[in-house]
């Protein structure tokens, strides 16, 4: 069985079918992009895969374990990290604390109520190491809310990485970044996933990035998988082309 296995997911909102029999499987160490036009169901799929939504039917298995239908905090503890389309950090905490709290959670130290946080020296070191990795080490004492957008996105990646996930799910990791920032971020992600053997699943609208780094691509349209394969296959697929450019309209 594949590392991440999505089987026949159906999800409706009211009368609207957001996902229809979506299946895909991701191998360990793979870099997988999920693309599709607006409203294709990418975010819904991400939310189902990480426990924010329960599927109406079908299941998601990660490393052999069923993870659909259990709350996000338990999905995460199985070794999945997720970042969000809209920057999702702890704004009124310092950069340092943002990562620190993630590490406390990872080491299951959040319950320690009687030891001062600053006395966890190993954690302090780890925080600085993670911040170094994403290039935020010298900004550790600024409030997260005053960072530039690119830095905030980087911080979010740092928070996600701090929990040592085996599978990283990134929802538009470069949204709102300048071209320079997004190139840097992608290089960083590639480096980390290679070094740590991470599996990467991401959505992205920047096609340069999608075709630049992914090994396999899944294309969604109107809640259905219309294509699944290697970048070259996807590029040549007429169905995909139609999804993006629309059908010819008969006179």
């Amino acid at each position, binding site marked *: 069985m594949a590392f991440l296995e999505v089987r026949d997911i159906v999800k409706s909102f009211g*009368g609207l079918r957001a996902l229809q029999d979506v299946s895909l499987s991701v191998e360990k160490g793979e870099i997988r992009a999920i693309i599709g*036009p*607006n409203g294709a169901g990418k975010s819904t799929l991400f939310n189902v895969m990480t426990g924010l939504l329960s599927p109406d039917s079908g299941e998601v298995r990660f490393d052999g374990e069923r993870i659909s239908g259990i709350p996000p905090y338990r999905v995460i503890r199985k070794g999945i990290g997720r970042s969000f389309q809209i920057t999702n950090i702890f704004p009124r905490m310092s950069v340092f604390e943002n990562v620190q709290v993630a590490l406390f959670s990872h080491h299951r130290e959040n319950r320690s109520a009687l030891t001062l946080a600053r006395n966890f020296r190993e954690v302090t070191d780890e925080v600085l190491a993670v911040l170094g990795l994403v290039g935020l080490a010298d900004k550790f004492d600024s409030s997260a809310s005053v960072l530039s957008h690119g830095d905030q996105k980087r911080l979010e990646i740092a928070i996600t990485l701090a929990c040592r996930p085996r599978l990283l799910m990134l929802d538009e990791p470069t949204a*709102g*970044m300048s071209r320079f920032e997004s190139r840097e971020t992608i290089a960083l992600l590639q480096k980390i996933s290679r070094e740590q053997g991470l599996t990467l699943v991401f959505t992205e609208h920047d096609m340069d990035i999608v075709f630049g780094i992914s090994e396999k691509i899944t294309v969604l349209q109107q809640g259905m998988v219309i294509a699944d394969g290697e970048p070259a296959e996807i590029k040549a697929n007429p169905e995909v082309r139609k999804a993006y*450019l629309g059908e010819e*309209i008969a006179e």
Partner: protein
Amino acid sequence: MALLELASVNTFYGRSHILFDVSLSVGKGEVVSLLGRNGAGKSTTFRSIIGLTPPQTGEVIFKGERISGMRAFRICRKGVGFVPEDRRCFPDLTVRENLEVAVRREKQTSSPWTVEKVYSLFPRLQEREKNLGSQLSGGEQQMLTIARTLMTNPDLLLLDEPSEGLAPMIVALLADMIIRIRAEGVTVLLAEQNLHFCAKVADRGYVIDKGSVKYEGKISDLLGNEEIKEKYLAV
């Protein structure tokens, strides 16, 4: 002189820079399309024009008057109508009420839109007149938001991805409606990623990618330009 003119517009969401020096112009009576993939900056361009996310630098000129910096309701009253991509009809109001709350500028217009007039354009809405906004299908919601915006009697209509998520038959229907709206003297700026839909209704087009304009020209030229299509529109 152009009806709408954007000059080097830069727009931010919080700290994130979305639009980079976007300039474009729309002449009176034209249908112009703004093409680009999702996330390219089409919606932000529209929100910058209507004043919901005002630009930080640059100018938006409408009928010779600077409208950037005005609040949205003022811009609407100047004659800019905005149809958002997520079809936000008022869910607790009936179809007719949705139309009634938008009535505006009847006196500034020679033959103003009335409920009956938009019903003749969208007969389906008349059938569902008493239904709540939340009870409509996706296509009906799309028609209602367009119809509702027409009730403000705009000189310029901003249509944000009207074809998104609709069945091909409805998309063809929608194209006819845009042509009829234009015939009523309304200028249309249309954001789309569906090139063929644009080809049916628009004269000119801008291609936008990563927040800046990459191409400007006739739609017919764009249809033949494989390079631009590959690079910015298809995958």
